[in-house]
């Protein structure tokens, strides 16, 4: 049987994003319970939504690291100071590497950006604006995941700290860290 009045894809995406109001959500719920075709379409959106929900962002807060650790994720944490250039190995027993980019004064930061380039070629690997940070932490936490292995391994991580208030017009403070990854 084919649904005569299928729920539109944008509506299903809004539904899974929680962006429909209660009445609209109830209409979708009711349709889905009576319609196998739309249930199948909804499941296709749901699978992507669930995968995105459980995805680990590339920059996380310490609280996220602690939560993952409490859940049993095998994490290896490496500390770096500004200007460091060091090799790290993504060893077989680790599920996740956390690069702690320390030595940062974040107390007056309004926004912090991260730019990652390849040391050997200068190619841009990633540019993340407005990364999550704790002003009292003095560090950013980079969640290096095993599937990053297909990116350049010789990474230069440049942190730009944009101050708030009177210093807002001043150029951002920067710090760089060179992390050479080995994926055995």
């Amino acid at each position, binding site marked *: 049987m084919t649904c005569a009045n299928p729920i539109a*894809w*944008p509506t299903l*995406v*809004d*539904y*899974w*994003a*929680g*962006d429909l109001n209660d009445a609209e959500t109830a209409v979708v*719920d*009711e349709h*889905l*319970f*009576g319609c*196998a075709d739309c*249930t199948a379409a*909804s*499941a*296709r*959106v*749901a*699978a*992507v*939504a*669930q*995968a*995105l*929900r459980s*995805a*680990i*962002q590339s920059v996380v807060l310490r609280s996220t690291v602690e939560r993952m650790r409490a859940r049993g994720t095998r994490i290896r944490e490496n500390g770096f100071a500004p200007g460091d250039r060091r090799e790290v190995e993504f060893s077989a027993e680790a599920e996740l590497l956390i690069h702690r980019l320390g030595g940062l004064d974040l107390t007056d930061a309004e926004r912090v950006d991260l730019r990652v380039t390849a040391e050997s070629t200068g190619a841009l690997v990633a*540019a993340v604006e*407005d990364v999550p940070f704790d002003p009292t932490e003095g560090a950013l936490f980079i969640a290096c*995941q*095993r*599937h*990053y292995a297909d990116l350049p391994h010789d990474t230069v991580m440049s942190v730009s700290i944009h101050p708030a208030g009177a210093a807002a017009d001043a150029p951002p403070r920067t710090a760089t860290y060179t992390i050479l990854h080995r994926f055995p």
Partner: protein
Amino acid sequence: MEAPDAELVRAIAAQADDAPAAEAELCRRFAPRIRLYGLRHLRDEDRAADLVQAVLLALLQAARTGRIADPDRVDRFMLGTSRNVALRMRETDARSAGDAALAAIAAPDELLERIDAPALWRCMRALDDRARRVVMLSFNDDRAADEIAALLSISAVNVRVLRHRSIAALRRCLDAPKEVDA
């Protein structure tokens, strides 16, 4: 041709020879719908699996004793029961006691496609920066469209359009056969 839902409900109520098969078929049809409802409204895979068990159990008990008033609209019975059980689960933080047979039907892996992190990552890289931010803010940070619009200085309508196009692009990418390394 598949038997209509109502026919299955009536076969269960009549406790005919084909009642066990009718029960299994009704559970097979509705388990994915209840599970999706649970995922959407309880936001937790374990609790969604619990919801499937609890609602199917209620369905079978009601069908066996002829308590489904309108077998032609068994979907409404399922939705109403799902709403009530989910509400109770939210209020009490309860987990169901469990039932082995129903647990097999509610097993998460069989009901929802699993997308692994490398596959998602591969497809996310094909999106542009703004599209990536919109989908991550929507689903990873649970931000509403209005909130994302303010953050990115675009309209909420734009956020929604970007989001549904991005999810469609991710879907196409995930469905495409993987390139095989030479």
